Structure formats: C-alpha cells, structure tokens
C-alpha cells in the first residue's frame, strides 16, 4: 500500500483544488467548488488515522481529476457574466460562509 500522505502533499492537493476551482468560467460553479473544497479539507483537518487519510487522499485525487476536466470545459463553453459578477476581474473571492 502507498505511504500516508504528508502534510505537504495535502497542502499541495488543496492548492490544486483551489487553482482549478477558481478557473471555472461559471460563477455559481466556481463559488461552489471553492466553498466545497474549503469545507471538505477543513472537516478532515484532524484526521490522523493513516488508513482513513489514504482513502480520503485517493478520493480527493479522483475528485481533482474531475475538477480539472470540468474547469477546462467550463472555459470552452462560456456564457455572459451574471448581474452579481463584476466585469473587471475581481481579486480574490469573498469568504462569506
């Protein structure tokens, strides 16, 4: 079996989730996947059981694959911006939860 993911690996994975989520062209999907990644990683922050960590890590890697493909797709089929979206690129996203 593969070794338990290190803290660095988890943070790296989180970074990938965030980068890909932020690239969704669709406002609602973008906001959702950012929110979902935050919740998902935070709720498992205190998991130390190596077997559980391994399973979670593998699941997250698979989810990241989905996110990568879909954020690319979202950039290929674009729609007008929503009335709540600034036309000039905004910096950062609100963290309101």
């Amino acid at each position, binding site marked *: 079996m593969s070794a338990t993911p290190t*803290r*660095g690996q988890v*943070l*790296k994975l*989180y*970074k990938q989730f*965030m*980068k890909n989520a*932020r690239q969704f062209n669709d406002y609602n999907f973008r906001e959702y996947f950012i929110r979902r990644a*935050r919740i998902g*990683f*935070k709720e498992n*922050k205190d998991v130390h059981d190596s077997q559980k960590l391994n399973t979670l890590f593998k699941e997250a*890697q*698979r989810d990241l*694959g989905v996110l*990568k*493909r879909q954020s690319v797709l979202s950039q290929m089929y674009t729609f007008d911006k929503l009335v709540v979206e600034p036309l000039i690129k*905004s*910096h*950062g*996203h*609100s*963290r*309101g939860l």
Partner: protein
Amino acid sequence: MFRTTLRAASPIASRAISRPLVAKSAFIGASKFVAPIRFYTAAPVDKKEITSRVIDVIKAFDKTAASSEVTGQTYFHKDLGLDSLDTVELLVAIEEEFDIEIPDKVADDLKSVGETVDYIASNPEAN
C-alpha cells in the same frame, strides 16, 4: 478504467508533454501562435505598488482582515488567524493577481505580507 487513464495522463500534461509541444510549434513558422506576450511587458513592478496590491488581495480574501489594518509586518497566522489551508488559498489568489507561480518550497516559508512582497519583487515574471 476510463477514469484512471485520464487521471494518469493529466499530471504529465503540465510537465513533460506540453513543453515539447511549444518547441514544436515554434518550428512550424507561425510565430504569432507562440506569442509570448508577457516577455515584452514584464516591466519591473515597484515594491510599494506590490505591497498595496497584496494588501488588496488579502482584504478581498478575508473578512477579518478587511476591517483590520494590514501592513508589511502583518503575519498570516499570528495576526490574521489564517491556518495552513487559508494561507495556501491566499497565496493562490496572490499568484493569480501577479500572474506568477510560487514554488511549493518558497510558499512554505512565506509567513508575512513583507516576505510575500519580497518574493514577488524578486520574481522577474511578476507583473
């Protein structure tokens, strides 16, 4: 089964395969396709401006930071209460703002606004 192949292919994408892709296309002759626009625009950005842009990103990112004073001496964890995940997320926002990629090794050591600004100023790619 399908999923695995795609997954296996994607990490390679950003490294091995995509690089020769560019080299190849440069030889095809259509130089406008390669268009390394940023090579021409990369004027050095001064530190004062970087600091204010970094602070803007932080304020947009974090509610508590928005109302408190953020300076070059502000520490992400100690002063803003950001945990390691929040810090990663903040650095992603900063990367986007300056069109750069902060290597993981460097990112681990960025603990304050000042350190982040110093790194960006030292990065010739930043704009």
